[in-house]
């Protein structure tokens, strides 16, 4: 089966979208690997291919006539079991790396403690992926990291010979190897059978579907890369597109009547106007500094000792938002402390900060040509409910309440989707050229 892939290298995460030859989205992948771009691309492609095989399994179940509720149950359970197998494989890789490190750096003392921690992590795995279990992040670094730190803390309290900071240092070194190795995470083929074997009850149609999907050869026939650092993507120059064009086309593919797109990512904000074909007609970006971008919220979260995802909900509790004008990322901490020292409430400050970010975006939108119906909001900040509230309010105040605002749950993949569509279009153009010759 032939496929096209689009890869979006963001400043925080790398995303991939896989399209089949006829156009539907087959798979998506995301990684927070901070290694070099080649590795990030390999990892994210590998993730997207796994996701693709899951969609193929779903198609096979459809073809086999499995009823929808049953199909959803089967796929969800298979997904959980698969992720657990993947997690265990990565844990084994982590153990190997830690052991190797310890033999090199600390020949004695630490190994039993580390093995004890990893053994407990192994035992906990089933609970992490149990039905109904919630995980703050599915990235192995975050998932394994939070458990390791907790267990390492307990271990260092129990055993005074083993210092907590040493254990953390070891993890920080070893995790780099694991998270940057596509082989540690493995492929669909590597874990699917084990996952099937773990299912609460055997299901013939699922078994058959997985087997058939494993036999499908997935062949990449086109790729396009985008995002910051796209010059260094492991693609030829002709296969690289600006993320502005990719976001425009991706938003058009998600919501076909989109005319204005706002993307607030980690380090830039883009206001884009597109025509009825998804072609960009005008755009504006923040210049010179990342004031008011996602990274700003990251700093604020760090300053407040909160997770990024906790900011929005807290800001929503505000009753009297504080008026804040500066969105300078560098001064974010100073601004925050100043407000706190004046006795302002955290939620009121946060509400003011969210509004300030959106005000800055509104200025870019105005400069790009305003907000037209329909309006699509993408990027990591689109997941923040307080930012969305502020945006809805300001759009309504400035452009009327008839503007339809679209936010897709998959908005983080908008750029990658646009890139995949460009890849698919290129292939089509090449084959048309070949036919006409």
């Amino acid at each position, binding site marked *: 089966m032939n496929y096209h892939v689009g890869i979006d290298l963001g400043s925080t995460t790398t995303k991939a979208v896989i399209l089949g030859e006829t156009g539907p989205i087959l798979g998506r992948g995301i990684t927070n690997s901070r290694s070099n771009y080649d590795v990030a691309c390999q990892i994210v492609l590998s993730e997207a291919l796994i996701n693709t095989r899951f969609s193929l399994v779903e198609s096979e179940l459809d073809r086999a006539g499995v009823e929808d509720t049953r199909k959803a149950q089967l796929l969800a359970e298979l997904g959980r079991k698969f992720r657990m197998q993947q997690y265990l494989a990565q844990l084994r890789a982590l153990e190997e790396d830690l052991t190797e490190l310890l033999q090199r750096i600390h020949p004695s003392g630490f190994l039993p403690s580390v093995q004890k921690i990893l053994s407990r992590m192994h035992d906990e795995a089933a609970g992490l992926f149990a039905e109904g279990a919630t995980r703050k992040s599915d990235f192995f670094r975050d998932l394994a990291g939070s458990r390791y730190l907790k267990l390492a803390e307990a271990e260092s309290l129990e055993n005074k010979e083993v210092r907590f900071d040493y254990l953390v240092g070891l993890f920080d070194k070893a995790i780099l190897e694991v998270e940057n190795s596509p082989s540690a995470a493995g492929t669909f083929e590597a874990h699917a059978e084990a996952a099937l074997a773990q299912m609460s009850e055997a299901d013939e149609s699922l078994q058959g579907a997985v087997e058939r999907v494993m036999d499908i050869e997935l062949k990449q026939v086109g790729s396009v890369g985008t995002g910051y650092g796209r010059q260094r993507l492991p693609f030829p120059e002709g296969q690289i597109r600006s993320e502005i064009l990719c976001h425009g086309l991706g938003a*058009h593919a998600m919501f076909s009547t989109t005319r204005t797109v706002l993307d607030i990512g980690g380090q*830039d904000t883009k206001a884009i106007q597109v025509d009825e*074909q998804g072609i960009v007609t005008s*755009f*504006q*970006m923040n210049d010179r500094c990342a004031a008011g971008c996602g990274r700003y919220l990251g700093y604020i979260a760090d300053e407040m000792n909160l997770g990024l995802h906790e900011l929005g909900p807290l800001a929503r509790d505000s009753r009297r938002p504080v008026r804040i004008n500066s969105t300078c990322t560098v001064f974010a901490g100073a601004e925050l402390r100043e407000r706190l020292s004046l006795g302002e409430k955290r939620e009121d400050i946060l509400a003011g900060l969210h509004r300030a970010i959106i005000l800055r975006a509104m200025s870019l939108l105005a400069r790009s040509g305003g907000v037209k119906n329909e309006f699509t909001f993408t990027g990591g900040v689109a997941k923040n409910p307080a930012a969305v509230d502020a945006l809805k309010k300001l759009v309504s105040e400035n452009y009327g309440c008839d503007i339809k605002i679209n936010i897709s749950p998959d908005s983080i993949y908008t750029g990658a989707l646009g890139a995949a569509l460009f890849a698919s279009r290129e292939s089509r153009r090449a084959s048309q050229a070949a036919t006409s010759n």
Partner: protein
Amino acid sequence: MPNSTEKAGIQKDSSQLRQKKMLAEHFTRLAHAPETGEKSAYTFVPGNMTELLLSFDILPVLPEINALQSAMRGKTKDYIAVAEKLGHSEDVCTYVKSDVGMLKTGNVGPTGERLPEPDLLLLSYTGCFTFMKWFEILREEYHCPVVMIHVPYQGEGQITDSMRQYVVDQIRQKLIPTLEKITGKRYDEDRLKECLARSARAEDDLVWVLQSAKNRPSPIDAYFGGVYYIGPIFSSFRGTEDAIEYYQALRSEIEESIRLGKGPMTPDGELTEERYRIVVEGPPNWTNFREFWKMFADEGAVVVASTYTKVGGVYDFGFRHDPSRPIETLAEYCMGCYTNLNLPSRVDMLASYVRDYRADGFLINSVKSCNSFSAGQLHILREVENRVGKPGGFIESDLVDPRYFSAANIKNRLESYFQMIEQKRLGGGEAA
């Protein structure tokens, strides 16, 4: 208007070597002015009255050209730091701060020779308010005579008789008597007329050179290359035989390029494939000039017309210095500078460039330093887009402060802009 061809890395044609020699000789004369007794006047490119100064044998010095040349030589970071240390805010025009920094560190000009102290500060264009403040600062340093000629803005899009007379009166009543006093020479109108006649001849050839970009492929880049072409006529050489000869030589070279079907020179040699024809509004960035140029050249983008090459005179819509009306023509010249035009006139001009030069789009480089240029540019962008139906682009940088050139951001926007043009060309039905 740089003089350093090595910095730009372009091939030196005989016209360029000639320009380099002209500038070297000029700066040597300036350096030796204290011994030879030659007088000098500091003045600005827009509205400069070079012919009148030359008719009194006064050597012009152009501080904003010194600033941009300092930027190309990598000096402005330190110069600006010196000026900021003296209390000039980060928000002040960076040409001013570069000039102040240069002045405070020995006043060594672009050829490495020291510039003389001015005998006169001549401001003959007041469309830029900062120019006035700039010379107030220099007056505190040099304590020399200052002439400030108030130049009315073309708010209604035209020069009226009373506007012309207002400037003529100032030239006659204020400037000429001061020049006579400084030099001890009588005003010689015949000599001025001879200079103006030579200006008009050079202006004819300059216009031909700039309009050669209407060819496909364009033999010149009318922005990055254009700033070299305007060098002599916008600075100290308008009205000289040297300028006439320079523009004749340049014209011959370009005629030859057209005959051979050659594209313009770029930092990496001749551009062989013209992919995008662009009109540019706004000054270039000087601190990263070569890098900035390469961002265009690497994408096969050629600038076919630019407004920046009109800051020292808008000649391509017919204006020529007219020796039969010597003072009136100088007054009209002052009021006809690009930044003295109102927004509708600037929109008309850009729209006509996009059409006449068969451009694929137009791009604004908005610089932090210059409100004369930057105010109203977004309005211009939308208006021109509506008029010509071609995509507009917007990037931001600065004149000579390297802190305001974010290469990644600018490259990102430029690439996106060129790809946007490409997508528009491919047209509908392809997008989804």
